[in-house]
């Protein structure tokens, strides 16, 4: 094995060597530099493999032939090796990326870059305090040099600010070091750790404080980080990448970690607090940014803050410490470097200018991978890391830390995904229309793609070393990811593969499911396959559609079979992200997709919190063990999980994302996210209730509250649906109502209630998918979703009409279709419930459903046909086909509900005290009543058939009259627009009940976001841009931390 000191020797030697070359031999110099970096990387990688694969113990590298503490020694263990590989590889890639700039500035710049990398390695390896200082100063100076690589003139000012700061830092550091030395008699970190008792009191403690502050400031904590943001913003992007990933992310943070060895746990809380504040504040401030690189800077500050938190929590993390810190650190480093590298391809600095990436699927995939890494989404290392971190925090009861982290992470995800929305949806600003914003140099692309590959590789590695099974081995996920590679195929081939895959997966996994899971599996997999039939209508390649859709379905199918909380949550995240990508594909869905994502992630974080609190450190926490959660925690766990799941089902209060998201999605996406995705939330609630049952918090029964929430959602959802002008929004609000019913049924906590919910699950899938497809088909033909602009389409689109007709009969619960079954079970269920008041709302919402249903069918298909629509054709075949399948399915389900529900009924029996239903014969009986779907159907069909036949017979000569051949107050109407009564259809109802329509919830959430943005905008004024002010802030930071620390 090559001595690791050669990393430093080669770096430095090459830097010196470059001075011998002629100024004009720039390409030679560049090649030499790359070679040197490559050799350094090779050495580091060799060591890494040595430690990781062979499990070797850390080695000490002595200098001067004298043992420490009398001479400087370096140490190389697995941590150091990982960090050095990160630093050097990042440096190498950045060097490749910066080719032009380096060649422009010549060999001196290359020397500086080499020294920069070398010094970072030095910081990582050294075990000597003063040596640490020297390497830090080298980094500072090299930074001041590398800033010149930027073409931005302002970079100079940023560099100068950094020099000012580093002056302050070196004062603190030197004073700290010398007094530490005086107290302990050594400069060696390990030596000091041995005398840590001295370091905890008096001057020693103060000295340590100064040192720690100095090193911390290099990690750029809020608020002493204005200078760093300026550098991030103005430096060459590849240098910013290096500065963020290697300098702040790896070296500075590791230096903090080393320093903390000296005093043990004494200073950990302070570091935690500083990290936490940085994480939350930086992510908050990033909300108000419009410059891409500055946003990344804030994000970087935030991520480093998060790593500091991990370091601060080292005392409770035990063996997992490196796994957690490493997961977050590496994800951050790769993602941030990758994003900075991408930013270098763009010539405009506005976030919206990134829309130039559109049309480059590879870059978009890279961007997605990077923001997923930053947001801690599976399967990336940060996901595993955060999970383990929260597990540990929950065991120790440090829940407030967890809360802050989750809040910050939510803010972070908000702006990252908002940015993603810009990429997909924003138009480039007018003045830049002609300018070439994106320039794709091959070597830069190679660098970016390397980062993507490494990121996914690490995802694999982290999965391998986690105690859970590797997420990347999950078949559905692999299937989904394979579509990233297959995306060049035409859509119809991919569609066929998808349908075949889903059906095959269902067939293969069929024996695994219990009856409850089976219902969901049928809906998710087979139901999904049916919706995909509609996707055949799309032409071309439909780039991005299949990976996203399959990611969602992968999540769904993994969710059903998940046995422990980790896999459940991972599946949950997959389906959330997949569905987000699906939703954002809609034409105007950018803001809605974002609000969907923010709410979903917020909900997901609550679920995460619930799970880890429940697990109390048990790593493979079986979902069934939720029932064994002890008393004081149980209701809180219940609360967290319930709110999390209810976000997905869009209960009133957390619903504002749904209408936009479902309405703006593409024609075949709306049924997926409405008919299928919403069920995931219900599935979660079922798992929760089945295992935790009724919980009481401060004497209030939580399921009772749920009951109210369900009823309220059903009522208000229906009510709002009645007032929509947009057909798809109407259906979306209707979904809120329907989910309210289902939630209500579950919260009744009796078997019939659950049967009702299952009934709703199945029904809602069928009819909502069908309605969304029909309405989508109509909207496709008419080019609008405003219902009042349609009308009279029945003759032109009879099949769509039939689907809607059957759909609304089913939704309304009118016999003989299957909706009635749900209502019937509902009445039986509430008979045995001990609560009565919430039913009132449900009773009220039933008839309200008629309002919107009638409006849906009337204003679209009946009434007056518009002139511009006279030549419309029926919806495309592929959109109609699934609708007809649904019609058939509804009929079958209406006739023999037992087919689906019988087994579930038996399965649920042990969980509840009351009786289920009796499925003997054709009549279904409960304790209270009976219901015979087949007889109902036959009786109605016979009566209807007889009357219809008779009418046909007597009026066989009837001919259809012209459109305006109606009696109309002695006039003949002449325009369909004035004759089609459709807009504001329920004016009288609005007069009576409109007061319930105040958008209080929307206003509330708008106020919350406004508040956050205003706050961010105010706080960031703090960064005045004046280097002197930054220095004062730094001083203030140190003093304030001092006062706090001494106070407590």
């Amino acid at each position, binding site marked *: 094995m090559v001595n690791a000191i050669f990393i430093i020797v080669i770096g430095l030697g090459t830097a010196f060597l470059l*001075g011998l070359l002629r100024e004009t031999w720039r390409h030679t110099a560049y090649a030499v530099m790359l070679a040197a970096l490559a050799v350094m990387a090779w050495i580091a990688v060799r060591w890494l493999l040595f430690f990781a694969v062979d499990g070797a113990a850390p080695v000490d*590298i002595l200098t001067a032939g004298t043992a420490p503490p009398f001479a400087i020694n370096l140490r190389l263990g697995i941590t150091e090796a990982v960090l050095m590989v990160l630093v050097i590889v990042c440096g190498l890639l950045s060097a490749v990326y910066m080719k032009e700039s380096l060649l422009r500035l010549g060999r001196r710049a290359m020397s500086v870059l080499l020294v920069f990398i070398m010094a970072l390695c030095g910081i990582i390896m050294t075990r000597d305090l003063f040596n640490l200082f*020297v390497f830090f100063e080298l980094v500072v100076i090299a930074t001041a040099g590398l800033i010149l690589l930027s073409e931005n003139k302002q970079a100079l000012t940023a560099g100068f600010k950094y020099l000012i700061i580093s002056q302050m830092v070196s004062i603190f550091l030197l004073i700290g070091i010398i007094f530490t030395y005086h107290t302990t008699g050594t400069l060696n970190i390990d030596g000091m750790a041995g005398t840590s008792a001295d370091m905890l009191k008096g001057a020693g403690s103060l000295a340590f404080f100064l040192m720690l502050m100095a090193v911390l400031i290099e990690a750029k904590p809020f608020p002493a980080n204005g200078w760093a943001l300026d550098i991030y913003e103005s430096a060459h992007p590849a240098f910013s990448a290096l500065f963020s990933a290697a300098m702040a992310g790896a070296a500075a943070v590791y230096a903090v970690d080393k320093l903390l060895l000296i005093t043990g746990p004494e200073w950990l809380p302070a570091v935690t607090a500083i990290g936490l504040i940085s994480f939350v504040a930086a992510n908050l401030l990033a909300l108000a940014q419009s410059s891409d690189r500055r946003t990344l800077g804030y994000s970087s500050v935030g991520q480093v803050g998060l790593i500091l938190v991990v370091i601060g929590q080292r005392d409770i993390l035990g063996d997992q410490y490196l796994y957690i810190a490493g997961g977050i650190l590496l994800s951050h480093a790769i993602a941030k470097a990758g994003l900075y590298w991408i930013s270098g391809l763009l010539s405009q600095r506005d976030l919206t200018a990134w829309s130039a990436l559109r049309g480059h699927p590879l870059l978009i995939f890279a961007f997605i991978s990077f923001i997923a890494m930053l947001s801690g989404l599976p399967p990336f290392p940060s996901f595993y890391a955060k999970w383990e971190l929260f597990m540990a925090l929950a065991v120790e009861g440090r829940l407030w830390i967890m809360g802050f982290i989750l809040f910050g992470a939510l803010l972070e995800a908000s702006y990252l995904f908002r940015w993603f929305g810009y990429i997909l949806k924003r138009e480039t600003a007018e003045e830049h229309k002609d300018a070439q914003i994106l320039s794709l140099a091959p070597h830069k692309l190679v660098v970016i793609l390397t980062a993507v590959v490494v990121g996914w590789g690490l995802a694999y590695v982290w999965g391998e070393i986690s105690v859970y099974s590797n997420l990347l081995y999950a078949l559905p996920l692999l299937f989904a990811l394979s579509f990233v590679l297959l995306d060049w195929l035409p859509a119809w081939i991919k569609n066929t593969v998808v349908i075949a895959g889903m059906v095959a997966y269902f067939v293969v996994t069929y024996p695994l499911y219990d009856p409850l899971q089976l219902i969901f599996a049928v809906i998710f997999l087979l139901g999904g396959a049916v919706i995909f039939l509609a996707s055949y209508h799309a032409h071309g390649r439909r780039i991005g559609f299949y990976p996203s859709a399959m990611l969602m379905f992968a999540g769904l199918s993994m969710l059903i079979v998940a046995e422990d909380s980790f896999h459940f949550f991972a599946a949950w995240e997959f389906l959330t992200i997949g569905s987000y990508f699906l939703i954002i594909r809609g034409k105007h869905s950018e803001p809605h997709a974002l609000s969907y994502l923010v709410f979903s992630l917020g909900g997901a974080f609550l679920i995460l919190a619930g799970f880890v609190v429940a697990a109390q450190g048990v790593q493979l926490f079986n979902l069934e063990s939720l029932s064994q959660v002890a008393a004081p925690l149980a209701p809180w766990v219940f609360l967290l999980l319930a709110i999390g799941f209810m976000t997905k089902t869009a209960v009133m209060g957390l619903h504002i994302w749904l209408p936009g998201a479902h309405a703006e999605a593409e024609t075949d996406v709306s049924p997926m996210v409405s008919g299928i995705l919403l069920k995931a939330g219900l599935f979660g609630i079922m798992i929760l209730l089945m295992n935790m049952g009724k919980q009481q918090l401060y004497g209030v029964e939580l399921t009772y509250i749920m009951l109210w929430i369900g009823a309220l959602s059903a009522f208000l959802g229906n009510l709002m649906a009645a007032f929509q002008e947009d057909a798809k929004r109407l259906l979306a609000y209707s979904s809120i109502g329907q989910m309210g019913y289902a939630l209500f049924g579950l919260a009744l906590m009796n078997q019939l209630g659950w049967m009702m919910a299952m009934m709703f699950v199945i029904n809602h899938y069928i009819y909502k998918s069908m309605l969304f497809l029909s309405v989508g088909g109509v909207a496709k033909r008419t080019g609008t979703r405003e219902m009042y602009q349609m009308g009279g389409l029945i003759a032109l689109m009879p099949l769509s009409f039939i689907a809607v007709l059957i759909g609304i009969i089913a939704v309304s619960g009118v016999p003989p279709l299957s909706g009635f079954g749900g209502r019937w079970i509902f009445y039986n269920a509430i008979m045995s419930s001990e609560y009565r008041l919430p039913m009132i709302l449900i009773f009220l919402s039933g008839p309200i459903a008629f309002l919107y249903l009638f409006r849906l069918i009337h204003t679209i298909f009946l009434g007056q046909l518009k002139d511009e629509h006279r030549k419309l054709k029926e919806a495309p075949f592929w959109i109609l086909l699934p609708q007809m399948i649904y019609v058939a399915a509804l009929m079958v389900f209406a006739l023999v509900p037992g087919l689906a529900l019988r087994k579930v009924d038996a399965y649920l029996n042990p969980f509840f005290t009351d009786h289920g239903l009796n499925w003997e014969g054709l009549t279904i009986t409960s304790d209270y009543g009976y219901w015979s779907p087949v007889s109902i159907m036959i009786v109605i069909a016979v009566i209807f058939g007889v009357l219809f036949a008779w009418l046909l017979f007597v009026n066989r000569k009837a001919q259809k009259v012209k459109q305006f051949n109606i009696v109309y107050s002695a006039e003949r109407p002449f325009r369909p627009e004035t004759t089609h009564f459709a807009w504001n259809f329920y004016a009288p109802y609005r007069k009576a009940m409109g007061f319930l329509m105040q958008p209080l919830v929307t206003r509330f959430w708008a106020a919350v976001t406004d508040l956050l943005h205003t706050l961010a905008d105010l706080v960031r004024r703090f960064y005045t841009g004046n280097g002197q002010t930054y220095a004062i802030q730094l001083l203030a930071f140190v003093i304030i931390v001092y006062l706090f620390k001494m106070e407590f």
Partner: protein
Amino acid sequence: MIKNFIVLLFLFGLGMIFSALLLGYTPDSELNLTGRYYAEHTAQDLGAANIVTAIIVTYRGLDTLGEVTVLFLTAAIVGMLLSTGAGKGKSLQRKLSQSGELLTTGSHLLVPLILLLGAYVFINGHLTPGGGFQGGAIIASAILLILLTDPLYRFSHQLISIVESISGLIFLALGVLGIFFAGGFLDNRILPVGELGSLFSAGAIPIIYSLVGLKVGAEFSSMLVNFSETEDS
């Protein structure tokens, strides 16, 4: 005014920290662990009479390498910064009045002496107070003197750069030799330790320190030259 007051306030806080340090400070009466080791072992292990030099060049040689690199970097960056100037090399040279005869002659007389002194200081760094940095600084002062007397005097950047690089490389190479022929990187005992107090003693320390001296001299000179050339524009 408010700003000054705030600054004062925070500096008062810092002053509090400093005073706490000062009050908590009790001067050692004995050498501490590290100091004692150096006092007792330097002579026989490394053979350097000047313990500080031994520490700088060997025990904490990595620091020194870093230090030299700091100067190297600074010189490179100053060069980079000032060579990318707006009107670099284009503007007319200012007419400077000739330096006086006395000054010119005096400096011609002094420069070799100063260079000699510098060389002496770094060659004897392991024996007497002084060393590479001091020597290098003295050498650079000679360059400064030349520049002051004749601001238009042009030094060869290439030459400075070569001196700088080669001395740096040899320093490193000597350090690496330590890995193979002695106890570790930068170990000076690749050459015989010799007799305490003589010029050819203390292993590679005199050589290294001389190289440091040359390098420091070259780097300072480079900075000075770069700064002085900005005056043209």
